[in-house]
């Protein structure tokens, strides 16, 4: 029969249009990073080749060269990456313990003005860090922590959003587990470590990613808290690099690519947890 054909054709056009639209949007998201990767793999003199007039060759790394990456590490960028890793990982571990304990306390126990404190915590994560960065500088002066790594780590450990994620998760754990363990004579520490922590691994991943990414992306605060820049973290190091080596384009791109690819490599396999963590905060918040 013939009347199947127009339908199939219409479906085919719809299919094509849909993919064209998705591809166009995805292209806008991917293009800057792609161009950065390509340009970081070219010699510096070739970065702007093939753009005027623009040809598709601008989007492949040819001629190919790894000199930019070598140059970046010669300028000490490896140390900056290690510094940032240290700050981010210590914050993440400390944050998981501190915020996990608080979330557990809010979920399991009843106490006076619990809801008021919880509301305050939720409000605390709605106010962006930038709002308090300048006065926090004064706090850091008072503590004598200026140019000390503690100034980067300690203020970021307690995190309202992470407390809230743990609270939300622990609230849903059936109380029977807890009652049974207590009847068996388990201590609170045992209950927390043997029952609640193993159950909460997905929440730990969500909250851990949030804490890690927060530190990895921190810019204004390390800029203010470390004025002598003896200890550089990645975003500030990158911005300084940009000011200092304005026209070493391929190295600027190499720095950007490294800075972006490390969190992307972490987020892509774990995106489910990150998305869930943020999305549940949005719904309940």
């Amino acid at each position, binding site marked *: 029969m013939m009347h199947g054909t127009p339908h199939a054709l219409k479906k085919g056009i719809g299919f094509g249009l849909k*993919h064209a639209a998705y591809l166009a*949007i995805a292209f*806008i*998201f991917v293009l*800057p*990073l792609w*161009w950065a990767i390509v340009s970081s793999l070219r010699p510096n003199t070739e970065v*702007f080749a093939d*753009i005027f*007039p*623009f040809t598709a060759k*601008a989007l492949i790394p040819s001629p190919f060269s790894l000199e930019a990456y070598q140059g970046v590490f010669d300028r000490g960028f490896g140390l900056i990456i290690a510094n940032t890793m240290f700050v981010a990982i210590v914050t993440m571990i400390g944050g998981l*313990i501190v915020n996990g*304990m*608080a979330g557990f*306390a809010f979920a*399991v*126990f009843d106490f006076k003005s619990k809801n008021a404190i919880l509301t*305050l*915590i939720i409000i*605390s994560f709605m*106010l*962006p860090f*930038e*709002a*308090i960065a*300048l*006065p*926090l500088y*004064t*706090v850091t002066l008072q503590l004598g922590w200026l140019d000390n790594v503690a100034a980067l780590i300690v*203020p*970021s*450990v*307690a995190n*309202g959003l992470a407390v809230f994620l743990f609270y939300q998760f622990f609230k849903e754990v059936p*109380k029977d587990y807890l009652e049974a363990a207590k009847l068996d004579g388990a201590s609170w520490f045992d209950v927390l470590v043997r029952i609640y922590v193993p159950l909460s691994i997905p929440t730990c991943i969500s909250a851990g990613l949030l804490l890690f990414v927060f530190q990895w*992306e921190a*810019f*204004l605060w390390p*800029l*203010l808290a470390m004025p002598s820049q003896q200890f550089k973290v990645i*975003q500030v190091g990158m*911005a300084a690099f*940009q000011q200092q080596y304005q026209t070493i384009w391929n190295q600027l*791109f190499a720095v*950007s690519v490294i*800075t*972006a*690819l490390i*969190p*992307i490599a*972490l*987020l892509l396999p774990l*995106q489910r947890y990150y*998305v869930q963590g943020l*999305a549940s*905060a*949005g*719904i309940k918040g």
Partner: protein
Amino acid sequence: MVRSKTPLFLLAVLLAPALVGLVVFRLYPIALAVSDSFFNMLRGNQVFVGLDNYVALFTDSAFWKSLQVTLWFNLLINPIQIALALGLALLYVQKFKGVAFYRVLFLIPIGVSLPTAVIIWRIMLSPDGLANGVLNIAGIPGQPWLTSESLALYSIIAIATWKGISYWMIFIIGGLQNISPEIYDAARIDGARAWQRLIFITIPLLKPTLLFVLVADVSINFLLFAPIFMITQGGPADSTNVLMYEAFKSGFIFGDMGRAMSIIVVVVAILLVIVGLQFRLLNGKPEKK
């Protein structure tokens, strides 16, 4: 219930680190900003000057110009980001073969920090950059994206939007997944078209999520700093000099912490008023969140 046997000591141990951290590094700085805004440094001493910093601010045309830039910037960037994030979220939740591939690509800017995005875009938008190269194919002459008074603010909006909408999309996806599919089925049976379903079902049911995103997005954009610091430093001709940058400049370039703190207090106060208004207007009735 566990209530009867709440061990108070344990409770204190569990809560103290987080609460002390939040009080010392979140609440105390806010109080400090307010109190510091009443002081000035005079020959190395902090001197109480009452409302002088505020009076000086409100009679300073640089402040008003900066406030104007901040408000205009926010009036544009927030609706743009939320509309695009909603559109992107609607595309993200579609189900068809191959959508998983696009989903990963939509999430890419989340991994790219704002300073990274700024560096890449700054080179892309440079006179010899990729943007002008692509426009050149269409015969459009190159534009001074970041160095012209009339374009710089909009280029910053574009960069921040590219970086931001994937992040806001995630929250909206969470909201979309909370809407039960039966409502859509019923509407489809009643003959509602796609745009009708969007306007009469999706958006009203998504209101709590959209309100959250709006409040969070406005808060971030009101205090946006990195792109201005890295690209324009408030220029050209103060066209991108938002209040957050003005505060930074006062405190850390001109060493006038009193002025910096009073600007921060004013910015946060304006922000709170805007957020309050958003709750009032969009929640229908004034109720607690």
